[in-house]
């Protein structure tokens, strides 16, 4: 704990601490301003003196390129991403940004205040913890920025653009939309980053809404099509309802505890969860909040809008929904379930264990079964995304069970970290292959509709490299070694099994007779999970078979439209998918570090 440096907004270290976010803000400004720079002048009234004020007017030739917003956004996102990476690389410095921080020299310490930063600062009792920069939040930022920058790169040739000399309304209109799209991407990234950093549930909620609103618009961005608008609308309505429920949950929680600070809520929960019965209010609140985040991770039965949204949105956007947006939901769930209603707070296991366990089973099974017969590749990927949410929920469930065995004292934290590592690893590599798959569809989309599996036909003949990429993404999604998807699934199974088995090994070496019934029931989650991944094999293979077996259909012949940007992005995804499968060690260590920093109490136990 003491490694965390407490700062308040606009301290001197503030810029260092929030550099990636500030880069995003700068990028946002740049996106808004730069495309508007022009030879506009202002005539000083009454004179002929024209003072240039640069906004508006005839655009400079340098910035008249309609692709410019894209470049700005990509640069910004990549910079932010690189910055996040750099913070890992150069030894992560942890910061807690609080609303108020007083130097010790000014005031004496009063009751409730805490000495921080090696005793040089006081944290007054009314001060709120707002944002925490540590391994966990940085890792999520990495996921968000990585995913969104890949999507941004891939979108660069997706949006219609016209030469700047074309002065038609349509051309102007479309060129203008370029900036809008990337602004929304950046705000989404911004919102997600806030979610990752937030230490106050309401701050988290704000970030969530920022990201959600951006994504609603992004989904509906193609308003020329029925599907686009419809998907956006459904996503918006169901999302709003979910977040409304979530917000109501927050308000109840606030009503109960008088605070939405994670740390304080956690203490309150610990105190309230007594064996003889718990107060109703926090449990209702917990349920409501679970719904709010459940929608974000698209857990069944809150997932219904997701397939429609994925199908309606352009593929890179759908990719963001399936990866970054989902990761955001996981952050929320992690904060809520593991910090606030933490398993430590209850003897044996967390209060939400059964509910989440059932949710995870329903989610993964529903997703896989629905995907089985789906003939729309995007919907199929959406359902598969539901299934993957189920796997992660299973992992979270396992963490909830980690101190089920009294004999586990001293071991449980390891298991929890193992599972958390697995979830983080999964989220990272999910960006590689799930987004990658969407990007492949994106290339196909630039040719025409991709609402039928048959659109993929003969891809191996038309674009062998793309087909190989898609193949790798598919088997990675299915969890076939040596792809990273396998590694993540293996980690997840390992984590769950470790939790379930606990220290049965000790009992075994004492000669006790144990059977699988003596393990915690979350072991069966692992079994359901592997069986589900076997089911999922079926529809992933169908994609492969369609690509390699069938001849190209109808007018879909020959190579696809080029677009080196999106191909680069796909290539990066392929490399990462394979690399993290074959050489997972570094990433596992990174995720382990992040998992460790989620909850210091685990490590200390």
């Amino acid at each position, binding site marked *: 704990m003491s490694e965390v440096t407490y700062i308040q907004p606009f301290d001197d270290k503030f810029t260092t601490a929030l550099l990636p976010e500030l880069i995003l803000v700068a990028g946002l400004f740049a996106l808004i301003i730069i495309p508007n720079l022009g030879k506009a002048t202002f005539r000083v009234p009454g004179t002929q003196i024209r003072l240039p004020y640069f906004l508006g007017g005839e655009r400079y030739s340098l910035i008249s390129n309609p692709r410019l917003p894209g470049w700005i956004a990509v640069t910004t996102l990549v910079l932010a991403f690189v910055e996040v990476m750099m913070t890992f690389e150069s030894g992560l410095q942890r910061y807690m940004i609080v609303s108020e921080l007083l130097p010790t020299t000014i005031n004496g310490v009063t009751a409730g205040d805490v000495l921080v930063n090696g005793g040089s600062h006081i944290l007054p009792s009314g001060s709120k913890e707002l944002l925490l920069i540590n391994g966990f939040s940085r890792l999520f930022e990495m996921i968000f920025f990585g995913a969104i920058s890949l999507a941004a790169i891939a979108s660069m040739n997706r949006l219609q653009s016209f030469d700047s000399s074309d002065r038609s309304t349509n051309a102007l209109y479309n060129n203008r939309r370029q900036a809008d799209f990337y602004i929304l991407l950046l705000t989404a990234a911004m919102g997600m980053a806030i979610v990752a950093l937030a230490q106050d549930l309401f701050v988290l909620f704000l970030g969530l809404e920022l990201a959600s609103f951006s994504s609603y618009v992004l989904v509906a961005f193609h308003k020329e099509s029925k599907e686009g608008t419809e998907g956006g*609308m459904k996503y918006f309505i169901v999302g709003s309802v979910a977040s409304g*429920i979530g917000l109501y949950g927050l308000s109840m929680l606030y009503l109960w505890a008088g605070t939405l600070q994670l740390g304080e809520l956690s203490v309150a929960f610990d105190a309230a969860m007594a064996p003889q019965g718990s107060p109703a209010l926090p*449990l209702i609140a917990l349920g409501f909040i679970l719904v709010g985040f459940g929608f974000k991770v698209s857990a069944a039965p809150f997932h219904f*809008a997701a397939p*429609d949204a994925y199908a309606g949105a352009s593929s890179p956007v759908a990719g963001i929904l399936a990866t970054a947006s989902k990761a955001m939901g996981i952050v929320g769930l992690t904060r809520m379930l593991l910090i606030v209603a933490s398993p430590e707070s209850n003897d044996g296991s967390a209060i939400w264990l*059964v*509910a989440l366990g*059932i949710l995870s089973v329903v989610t993964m099974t529903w997703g896989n079964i629905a995907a089985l017969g789906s003939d729309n590749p995007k919907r199929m990927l959406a359902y598969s995304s539901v299934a993957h949410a189920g796997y992660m929920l299973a992992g979270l469930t396992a963490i909830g069970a980690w101190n089920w065995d009294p004999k586990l004292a001293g071991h449980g934290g390891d298991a929890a970290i193992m599972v958390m590592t697995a979830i983080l690893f999964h989220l990272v590599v999910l960006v590689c292959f799930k987004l990658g798959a969407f990007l492949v569809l994106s290339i196909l989309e630039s040719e025409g509709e991709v609402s039928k599996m048959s659109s993929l036909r003969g891809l191996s003949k038309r674009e062998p490299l793309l087909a190989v990429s898609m193949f790798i993404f598919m088997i990675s999604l299915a969890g076939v070694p040596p792809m990273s998807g396998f590694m993540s699934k293996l980690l997840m199974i390992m984590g769950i099994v470790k939790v379930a088995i606990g220290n049965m090994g000790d009992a075994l070496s004492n000669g006790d007779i144990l059977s699988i019934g003596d393990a915690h029931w979350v072991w069966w989650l692992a079994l359901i999970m592997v069986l589900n991944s076997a089911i999922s094999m*079926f529809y992933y293979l169908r994609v492969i078979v369609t690509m390699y077996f069938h001849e190209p259909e109808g007018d879909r012949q020959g190579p696809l439209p080029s677009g080196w940007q999106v191909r680069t992005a796909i290539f990066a995804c392929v490399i990462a998918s394979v690399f993290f499968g074959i050489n997972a060690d570094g990433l596992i260590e990174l995720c382990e570090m992040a998992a460790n920093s989620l909850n210091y109490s685990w490590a200390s136990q």
Partner: protein
Amino acid sequence: MSGSSSSEVVHSSMAEYAPLIILLPMLAMPVILFLGKVFNTNPTWKNTLKEGGIIALVAMGASLFISLAIIKDYLGSFSNNGDIFSLTWLNTAIWEGGASTTPISFGFGIYIDHITVMLLFVAAFLCFLINIFAIGYMNTDPINDNRNHRFYAEFVLFCAGMLGMVLSDSFLWLFIFWEIMGLCSYLLIGFYYERPSAASAAKKAFMTTRIGDVFLMIGLIMLWDLFGSLDYSIVFDPANIAAVSPGSLQMALGMMFIGAVGKSAQFPLHVWLPDAMEGPTPVSALIHAATMVNAGLYLVARMFPFFGAESMSGELIDLAFIIASIGGITAVMAAGIAFVQDDLKKVLAYSTMSQLGYVFTGLGVALWLANSLDWHHDPAAHTIVVVAFGAALFHLFNHAMAKGMLFMASGSVIHEVHHAHHHLHHDDHGDDDEFDAQSMKNMGGLASKMPITATAMLVGSASIMGLPLIGGFWSKEGIIANAWRVALEDPRFLFPAACVLLGAGMTGFYMTRMWVKTFAGKPSNEVAAHVGPTNSWIKTPLFILTFVTLSSVLLAGMGFTHWAPDSEYSFLSDKGLVDGIMYELGHAFANHDAFFFILTYVAIALGAILGPFMAMSLFGGKLEEGEDCKPWFKPVISLNNWVYNKYHWDNTGIATSGLAVALQNRLYIDKYYDLAMVKIVAGFSNKVAEADTKIIDGTVKQIEDKSQKISTIVRSLTTGSARDYILWVAIGTLLIFFFIWGVA
């Protein structure tokens, strides 16, 4: 091979070369096959090397030479029984509990004793002669164009299998070579692969023997489990035999006997043999007379030490009875079917079965005697056992020689009839040819045209019939006598004894019928009238075998009827040849025991008088006017003519009776086997295959289909209306409450 010579017995120096007997033909096979493939139409290959026939002949000659050298060395004394050398082949281990595994091994080696010597001579000698015959027969048959190398390759491999089986020193290797023979018989019977009948006959032969082989294999494994080895030197050791349970041993031997039944075409696994006549005649001679069918006899003969062991005394008589009974049944049944066959080779085939039945009966009674009598200590009993066993082996010998000769002679007849047919009709030989060169209906009166062949046939038939003093007489009398001897002791044996006695008469009938139908009487059609003499490749073996068969009185005198180890009266022993012959004659015709005296003459009356008489009264007759024949045929023809004219009677009633029809249909056994195959086995397997597809794979497919259906249902919940989605959110919320509340 690892391992080394292990026996301390001093051996013939030739025995060191014994492996060559097997190896030479075995190596000749790829050579012939390769050369034949490469030089297929080369004139030198075709004419000088006879498409590989000469290479085969050289290999077989060398084998025969080495065999004879070994036999010569061994004839002087039978004491050098046992392993020549042995090599380990398989090393493995079993675990019988306890702290370590027990290593076991299976080896290969050469083992020579009196039975080996007998069979070695039969096999090597007949293979060589048949090889000579084959060159004359195969290479002149235009239907064999350019594929005789295949015949010779398979032929030599077959011979290698037979010789290997005889020489090997363990039941395992006996089985291995036994199977190789089985393969070769399959290939040889199916030599005319394009004929569906040949293909089906080959399959039938392999399949039927395979069923026997399965039992044999299990029997061997049971035997192995009893002794921990399959080496003769170990399993024949009385000390080892004393240690095993008689019941288990009897089971094991019984299983092995079923193998022998299959191989030697005994009831009920006899069905393959008549069909196997689809192969070229040399093959018939080889498989059905000289070698393969004898393998089963050899196997049973090999069991002698078990029956003879003191510790087993009286324990194995049930098996001995079964052996004898199977032989008896087959002897009568096959003879009966032979009554009505018109196909020359088929008659011989059934005759083979019948005669093998004799040998089995002989072996059965010999084994019974060995098992019941106290022959280790009682010299009289010893003689009885040795003579009984010797008689059976001698019949094997006689039959092999005679039947080999008969087949070759019949081949010669068929060959020439075939030629005559072509010569006459000048048509291309094709498969649509209706003419059946093997049917006796197309022959008759050939005695004048093919004197050597007819002679050989005559002598061979006489030998099989047991005409006094010729070949089979000695051995057959011995078998019948011993069968009755046992029957007096053990009434169960009345059945096989009666069978063999009855069979003697039946043999007389069908063999005579065959001869007179073929050689006596008038040519039944134009073709038969134009048959010419045969070539010298074919004549030579006939000539040699005729001599051997005729000289069996000498062989008998030399002690062939006492062909057993530690006989006080062993081969060419102190008695000398003349004394030996006298002894045999006296023993046969002037037995001191009144029962056997009468029995002998009853048998002679049946086999040599009644049977032939009946046959002659029905078939044959005088030759065509103006046809001249060799002087030694004249009495036969005249007798036939006389009987035919005087006693000819209309047998239509019998020939069309139910029994005759049943015999013509082989007693419907084949029919029911086929029925069982088609209805039960094929039907069942089709059902199982269907179940595999419908039920096992069907379950998998069901899962697939059902999951697709469920998927459709699940996806139909996504109705497309945002209101429904929200409803689901609400339901989900309630469920979450429920579960959180439930826990809390």
